[in-house]
């Protein structure tokens, strides 16, 4: 059964049950991915996946059910399950759907030729040969990879909404393992875009350097000291604590920023932006409920301008949606999420930040963010890796230490922000990115 046939079967079933308000959300993900080990392809996988989420208003609540089984029986069961789930719900949310006929900003995603399976295989093998021969420290257990994917989202509902968006991307990955006879170290670099234009040698060199840099690392001393977070490290912190900017979390009493809109929550040098049309992103013109998306400042010069809203949380707060209705997967309830969230860049280079720090640590790896950081309290204590900063310069590598502090306190203790903002690394519709930042008041635990 095609999606169109399935959709018609679901709508017929809903009408028969007297259901007037409903929505179908369809997601499809096609991908090919390839990995190489030594000088051969080790894994090749290809898949077409996708599912349909149906939600409908019954008894004053919006019930959800989802399936990958696009069959006539599947259609009937889907409507029945969604209706049953609706009558179990008890929250004070009222069912809301976006009406058709909205105006959407048109931003064309970057288009480039996508490789076919044979092209992927060829590229990965070339890349692997290049990496294995690039540096004597690179061990033969290093791996390369590549993928090409297409994501399609379609939403239609009983209010005349009928939307569809596809984003495509291709990416190359270098995963070198290096050794010095004493120990091994590894790193990962990825670059999305047109394979013909990606400088593979540069991707490889960057990954190999990163892996080599952490060989032979020591452990820093324990104490409070200035910390410079690399763009990668700061982006992952931002991603971990981003749920604090969700109105849904705030309304449920699970965000420290509840009731703080309009107030100062960060230093005057902090501006935090959410931009659905950030260069290289999926460029989603609509969110997961079909509301138009737009760029906005969440924090502007330290002041919390707005939390992020979907239809439901906006209605509760007496506001308009910010177009941040989002599902964690096609089967999930609509929640709230940023598109591309980033810390606005400053003027200085990273080298100038290091000079300003004087003595401290530079952190370019944070581990265990799912466990060592509490998005509700803001507390974090995280495994870290990087370099010592001595006399304003990167010095010896360090690892196996932790950095601890509180995210909300830290927003007021950012001494400086660099200018080195890059597109987020992941290819999905949600991403986080940041320039390097210099922070005071954090504690490092080493030896």
């Amino acid at each position, binding site marked *: 059964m095609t999606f169109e046939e399935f959709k018609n079967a679901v709508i017929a079933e809903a009408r028969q049950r007297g259901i007037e308000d409903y929505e179908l959300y369809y997601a499809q993900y096609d991908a090919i991915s390839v990995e190489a*080990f030594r000088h051969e392809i*080790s894994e*090749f*996988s*290809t*898949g*077409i*996946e*996708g*599912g349909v989420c149906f939600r409908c208003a019954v008894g004053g609540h919006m019930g*959800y*059910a*989802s399936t*990958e*089984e696009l069959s006539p029986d*599947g259609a009937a*069961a889907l409507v029945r*399950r*969604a209706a*049953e789930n609706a009558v*179990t*719900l008890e*929250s*004070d949310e009222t069912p809301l759907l976006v009406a058709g006929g909205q105006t959407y900003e048109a931003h064309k995603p970057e288009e480039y030729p996508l490789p076919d*399976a044979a092209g992927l295989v060829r590229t990965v093998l070339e890349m692997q040969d290049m990496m294995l021969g690039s540096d004597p420290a690179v*061990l033969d*257990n290093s791996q390369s990879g590549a993928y090409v994917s297409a994501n399609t989202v379609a939403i239609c509902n009983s209010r005349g909404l009928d939307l569809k968006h596809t984003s495509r991307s291709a990416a190359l990955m270098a995963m070198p*393992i290096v050794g010095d006879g004493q120990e*091994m*170290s*590894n790193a990962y670099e990825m670059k999305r875009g047109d394979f013909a234009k990606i400088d593979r040698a540069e991707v490889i060199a960057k990954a190999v350097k990163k892996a080599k840099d952490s060989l032979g690392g020591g452990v820093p001393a*324990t104490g409070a000291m200035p910390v410079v977070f690399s763009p990668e490290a700061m982006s992952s912190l931002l991603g971990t604590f981003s749920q604090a900017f969700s109105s849904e979390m705030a309304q*449920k*009493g*699970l965000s*420290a920023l509840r009731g703080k809109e309009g107030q100062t929550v960060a230093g005057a040098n902090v501006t935090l932006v959410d931009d659905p049309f950030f260069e290289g992103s999926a460029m989603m013109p609509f969110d997961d409920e079909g509301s138009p998306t737009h760029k906005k400042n969440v924090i502007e010069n330290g002041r919390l301008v707005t939390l992020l809203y979907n239809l439901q949380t906006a209605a509760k707060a007496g506001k308009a949606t910010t177009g941040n209705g989002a599902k964690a997967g096609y*089967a999930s*309830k609509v929640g709230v999420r940023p598109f591309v969230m980033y810390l606005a860049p400053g003027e200085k280079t990273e080298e100038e930040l290091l000079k300003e720090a004087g003595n401290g640590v530079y952190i370019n790896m944070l*581990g*265990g963010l*799912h*466990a*060592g950081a*509490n998005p*509700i309290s803001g507390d974090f*204590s995280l*495994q870290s*890796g990087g370099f010592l900063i001595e006399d304003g310069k990167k010095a010896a590598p360090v*690892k*196996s*230490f*932790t*950095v*601890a502090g509180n995210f909300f306190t830290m927003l007021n203790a950012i001494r400086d922000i660099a200018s080195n903002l890059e597109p987020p690394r992941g290819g999905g519709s949600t991403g986080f990115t940041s320039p390097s930042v210099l922070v005071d008041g*954090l*504690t*490092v*635990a*080493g*030896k």
Partner: protein
Amino acid sequence: MISKALCERVLKRAASTGADYAELFAENTLNHSIEMVGGKVDAINDNVIAGAAIRVYKGLRSVMASTVDTSEEGLMRCAQRVADALGEGKAEIAIHLSEQVIANIHPVLDAPSSVANRRKVDILRAASNAAKEYDEAVRQVTGRFLDVDHNILIASTDGVYAQDRQIRTRLAVSAVAEMNGQTQTGSCSPGRRMGMEMFDGLIDPAAVGREAARQAVVMAGAGYCPAGVMPVAIENGFGGVIFHEACGHSLEASSVAYNASQFCGKLGQKIASDKVTAIDDGTIPNAWGSINIDDEGTPSRRRVLIEKGVLKTYMIDKFNGRRMGMESTASSRRESYSYTPTSRMTNTYIAAGEDRNEDIIASIEYGLYAKKMGGGSVNPVTGEFNFAVDEGYIVRNGRICEPVRGASLVGKGSEIIQKIDMVGTDMDMGQGMCGSSSGSIPTNVGQPLIRVSSITVGGR
């Protein structure tokens, strides 16, 4: 489900270009969860996952294709995609499937997938109310009732034609407490490879709610954990996450086969202290991480990974086993058909030792007692790991003193397992979801109370 005859046709097509192994994995899964926020049912997630994946090997190369279309035409098309991707060769293997009767060592009495929402909501409400009523400092309670009915079929040119139904039930409660302007959280989330009978005497929903609230209240009144290197006593149950991260992942063939593990080439060698015997056992009846067969159709088994400090075996799947020249240990697992399976853990624990709990605490002059652990992660190449301490206490002069928050432990796996110098007698397990390249799968971690003589404690 798919007939044996159709499986044979599909495998024949998949192997038609020279594969030396072909496998079909099909699944139909119902994932259901009910979420409660502040005592009210807030969301229900109800999803049918249905599809198939076909995989072939030729030597050390693996090719997989997945599809949501499990009709005969859909499966044959998928098989052709795999055959085409492998290349141009001739069929080399004969295919004879024989149906395996798999002993069900994890019987389920009352499948949650056929139970009305109302019964699950009642359990959730009992847990949520108990958490809310525990203390006036409790500000918010969220809870989740999750159940999974995962039906799999595996057919392979090794002759396997096997099916399994894997039912899991879990109750997860999280509480937020506030004291003097400080907000902290607590959680408790027991689960079993069982149905609704899990709540007939084994798990008391109200006790789950109270435990989440207790932890939140204790931590809301706690100061920050100091930073430094010190001895740490780690409690049983989810404390076993230390072995899971520090050692377990590095013993998976997915790292070892690629010479990308700190424990490569160490079979038969002493890698841990004498006190450490570690086991990965997928056969524990109705345990969270248990299986009847792995995702390549190999019957589940118990593996002694480390015996008195000596490395005995790795955890191996068929594909990575080829590279290592070793047999599968029934360790192949995948979240769903859309992931390429690889070697993973099941129920992994440090076996009970002989030290008394009171002696372990009394041996610490100044250190940390980690009563409840959070999650963690590891880089198997370097062995550098981390995990969070959700509820910790300072130990002074052999006595447990004030609670501390915000601690994490970091180290290098191969060094830390040599520093486990005391192992208690009362082994217990805790439930987790383990994320890796083949997706998120249920695993148990476990241990008795142990002492690590010295480890870096991240605090401030």
